């Protein structure tokens, strides 16, 4: 391909890789334009990583797409300029734009599975990225191999020959990044690149991007709702709210010294620095974000701001410089300390002593095409009254299977027992007596899926009340209103359908339904992972409060260790259907851990900017159909003892009262610092069984 594109000259190098200036954008929905971006301006210089954070719907992704002028059909740029290396994107023709995207800019999307073509081999797809650059077939093949090596994929030759479904999500995201880097982009846009991935895989991908930054000189625009990701990855950050950047500065400045009430609210809503439910409540930002297209008052945040005054309603807030390069769009930047701190918790959390539900030696084996797949192997757990048991582990470790077995969605294998106050329950829910059905309920991860779209909230709650408690007529209606009120749902919400409610309200309805039958144990399967942090805070506060009033126990499944640490009294760590470690929250975060827990904990990107040495987990989780012999974790363990761990399965040993781990190593051995050779950290393709 011959290109007339002038090579970047010195003058061009002076231009920022991305400069967005006064950008105003709207989407045309059912014929009416609705404003999404309002006067967005920022710059990303070469070699710099710039992050955008904010709640969903605030315009982060729209900004990312606008940076490449890659907008949906109903998107319209109303005003402003988007420049890259001195070139004006808004003025480019279709052909120039294509050239720009092929040669100068790349984008990595949220879901790698959708970003690759499922019917083409990886090698072909990566090579395609180089062919667009004008390389011949053989050149492109060689370049593709080199590109896969660059993203730390072990045995790239074999990966080239695989189809996307044969690779794990983390591996695919590496492939997508390899393709994005094919043109040595001056601008790399990453839109929530790790959102769908496990914490351990997320950490790997972030490590990779960080390493590549030093090799390349590209500017990075990173969109993420996870504040920890932004903190660990970016130099500067812009906080977006309702289509406007309200605060900008270096990550350290913005996160440690926030000057906008919104930024402060966001930071207060996540459990930071090992916060526990016994310390203080999380801060839930009151009110809701304005819908796109709403006509806004002068300050977009006014309705939710605790320190707003009359001037906020009459004058557009000025840009107030806080320190070099750190500014905020607020009238009262100097009064930021007036933002009230979240409430200290005064109530006592009492965990009962009587075991309500016991899981004793429960196993669950699925049969698939004549193969036994042990999804749970002899799990022992117990719940005391009012206790929260946190359950963590990567996807595929059997967390949800355990929840479903407890709920009676499928029966456990012979031998184990699930007991309710000492009496054994039947395996399947249909075979259980009414009292047992009532005793356990569930809050699902995704409220959109968990609530019947065509039912009103009242009907959803009413049905559960009638079915589970047997109360009928006026008493049932009264009970519905009581539960709704306990979830802080107002009566008008009762006559709405789920789609009319926001994500947080939907999850409240789901929780209300779970509490309809006065359950003993509520299984919460990632109840906040689909929600924004400020909403998550409100839901966690609600769960903690309900527990205290109702004396309910929770099985709280989550991959967000910060959240589990906040809410849980005890934590269990699962791997391949086995409990690897269990102990009180205090002991789990206090020194000696199972090597798997150690790796999980090190993978969490911290909002507090305290980077710890990360312990990588090599490769993907093995298939439960074919678990490794000996200790199931030895294949990925950084402390494995040759000749012992791959032969003998360790027993559960009690390190201290109530804190047990399944490991051969002694406490002293576990506390020795580990040295990880960075060159050994390669993504290894694990053969995914073709099911």
């Amino acid at each position, binding site marked *: 391909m011959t290109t007339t594109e002038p090579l970047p000259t010195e003058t061009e190098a002076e231009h920022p890789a991305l400069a967005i200036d006064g950008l105003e954008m709207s*989407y045309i*929905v*059912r*014929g009416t334009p*609705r404003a*999404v971006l309002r006067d967005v301006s920022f710059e990303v210089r070469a070699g710099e990583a710039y992050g955008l954070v904010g*709640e*969903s*719907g605030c315009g*982060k*992704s729209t900004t990312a797409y606008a940076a490449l002028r890659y907008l949906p059909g*109903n998107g319209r740029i109303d005003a402003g300029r988007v420049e890259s290396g001195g070139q004006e994107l808004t003025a480019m023709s279709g052909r120039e734009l294509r050239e720009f995207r092929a040669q100068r800019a790349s984008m990595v999307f949220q879901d790698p599975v959708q970003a690759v073509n499922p019917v083409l081999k990886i090698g072909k797809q990566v090579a395609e990225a180089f062919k667009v650059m004008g390389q011949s077939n053989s050149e492109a093949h060689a370049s593709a191999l080199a590109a896969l090596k660059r993203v730390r994929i072990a045995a790239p030759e074999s990966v080239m020959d695989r189809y996307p479904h044969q690779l794990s999500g983390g591996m695919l995201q590496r492939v997508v990044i390899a393709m994005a880097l094919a043109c040595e982009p001056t601008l790399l846009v990453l839109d929530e690149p790790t959102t769908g991935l496990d914490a351990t895989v997320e950490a790997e991908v972030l490590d990779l991007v960080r390493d590549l930054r030093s090799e390349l000189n590209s500017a990075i625009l990173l969109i993420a709702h996870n504040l920890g990701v932004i903190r660990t990855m970016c130099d500067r950050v812009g906080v977006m709210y309702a289509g406007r950047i309200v605060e900008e500065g270096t990550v350290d400045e913005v996160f440690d010294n926030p000057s906008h009430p919104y930024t402060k609210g966001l930071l207060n809503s996540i459990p930071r620095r090992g916060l526990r439910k016994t310390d203080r409540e999380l801060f839930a*930002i*009151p*009110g*809701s*974000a304005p*819908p*796109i*297209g*709403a006509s806004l008052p002068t300050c977009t945040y006014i*309705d939710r701001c605790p320190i707003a005054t009359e001037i906020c309603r009459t004058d557009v807030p000025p840009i107030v410089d806080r320190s070099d390069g750190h500014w905020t769009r607020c009238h009262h930047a100097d009064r930021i300390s007036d933002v009230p701190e979240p409430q200290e918790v005064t109530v006592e959390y009492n965990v009962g002593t009587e075991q309500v539900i016991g899981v004793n030696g429960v196993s669950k084996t699925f049969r698939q095409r004549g193969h036994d797949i042990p999804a749970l192997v002899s799990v022992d757990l117990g719940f005391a009254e009012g206790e929260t048991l946190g359950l963590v582990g990567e996807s595929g470790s059997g967390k949800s299977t355990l929840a479903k077995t407890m*709920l*009676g*969605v499928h029966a456990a294998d012979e031998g184990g027992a699930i007991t309710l106050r000492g009496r054994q329950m039947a395996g399947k*829910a*249909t075979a259980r007596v*009414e009292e047992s*059905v009532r005793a356990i*309920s*569930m809050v*699902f991860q*995704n409220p959109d*899926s*968990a609530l*019947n779209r*065509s*039912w009103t909230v009242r009907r959803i709650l009413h049905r*559960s009340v009638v*079915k*589970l408690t047997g109360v009928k007529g006026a008493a049932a209606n009264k009970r519905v209103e009581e539960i709704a009120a306990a979830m*802080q749902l*107002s009566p*008008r919400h009762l006559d*709405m359908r789920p*789609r*009319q*409610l*926001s*994500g*947080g*309200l939907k999850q*409240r309805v789901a929780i209300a*339904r779970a509490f309809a*039958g006065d359950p003993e144990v509520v299984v919460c399967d990632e109840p906040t992972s689909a*929600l*924004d942090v*400020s*909403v998550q805070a*409100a839901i966690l506060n609600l769960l903690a409060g309900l527990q205290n009033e109702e004396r309910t126990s929770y099985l709280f499944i989550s991959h967000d260790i910060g959240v589990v640490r906040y809410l849980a009294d005890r934590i269990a760590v699962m791997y391949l259907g086995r409990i690897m470690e269990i102990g009180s929250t205090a002991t789990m975060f206090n020194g000696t851990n199972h090597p798997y827990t150690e790796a999980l904990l090190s993978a969490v990107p911290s909002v507090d900017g305290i980077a710890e040495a990360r312990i990588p987990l090599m490769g993907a989780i093995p298939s439960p159909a074919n678990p490794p012999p000996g200790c199931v974790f030895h294949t990925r363990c950084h402390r494995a003892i040759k000749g012992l761990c791959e032969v003998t399965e360790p027993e559960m040993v009690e390190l201290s009262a109530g804190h047990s781990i399944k490991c051969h190593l002694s406490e002293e051995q576990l506390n020795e610092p580990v040295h990880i050779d960075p060159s050994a950290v390669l993504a290894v393709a694990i053969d995914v069984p073709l099911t």
Partner: protein
Amino acid sequence: MSETSDLPKSDPARSVGERSSATSERSAKNQIRREQFRVLYRSPGFIFGVLIVGFWVFAALWPSLLTSDGPKEFVEAGPRVKPGSEAWLGTNKTGWDVYARIIYGARPILIVAPIATAMAVIVGTMLGLVMGYYRGWADEVLSRVIEAILSIPIILMAILVVFTFGRSTPVIIGTIAVLFVPAITRTIRSAAIAESNLDYVMSAKMRGESGLFIVSREILPNVTGLVVVELTVRLGYAVFTYATLAFLGFVGSNITDADWGIDVSQNYEQIVRDIWWPSIFPAIAIASLVIGVNLIADSIDKALKS
């Protein structure tokens, strides 16, 4: 306390209805409905479709208001008159007015097609829901039966049925309905499978609901949109299928009956003698009805998705 409405970022259209301040939620939903209707009313396809279908429905109900001639009435102009001032759309070889026959011919097709479609949609929806929710061996067996029915050519099936049961209107309706059930069942079945995998169904199972309750109260309301789309799309096909059967002579007791398909088959041979109007105009009538129904179906689908 109300709460943050977290707007889905990929779908700006949906988020508009999601505000939770004061009384606006109700009106927001109504506004979406209003805007959808406005999109519908303003789309030229919908207006055009309604005009066409409305005209034929009117013709089927009150044909005498649209023409003074009867379908089997010899008009003054005589046979084989070109379209013009004497006879609007000309006369056929017998001397009957083509326009009058088309107007009267709307009735049989507009009786058979909607009834057959409604029957097929009702049976297909019930079958699809039950198969999609329960799965298992009954689903396997019925799926094979459906595939078997789908593999029989429509015409072959029609010949078999007509020779066995005669050519009365109920038989024709039943034939078309049976032919359409498999396709509808498959569509609804796959939707029911998708719904059954959602957590609300699991939640219903966990609180011990019966299968009948889950299928009829939980799942059915969520596939009604699809049922409406199936209904309109299949109606277009039913019109077409009926016309085909009429053309092939499987319909009606008499070849002199006013029926678009019969008229096309009775007169198409004369096209070679340049007498095109007695066959082409009924053919256009068939096409216009199919197009009108499809325009409405498309517009509804689009408005629901906007």
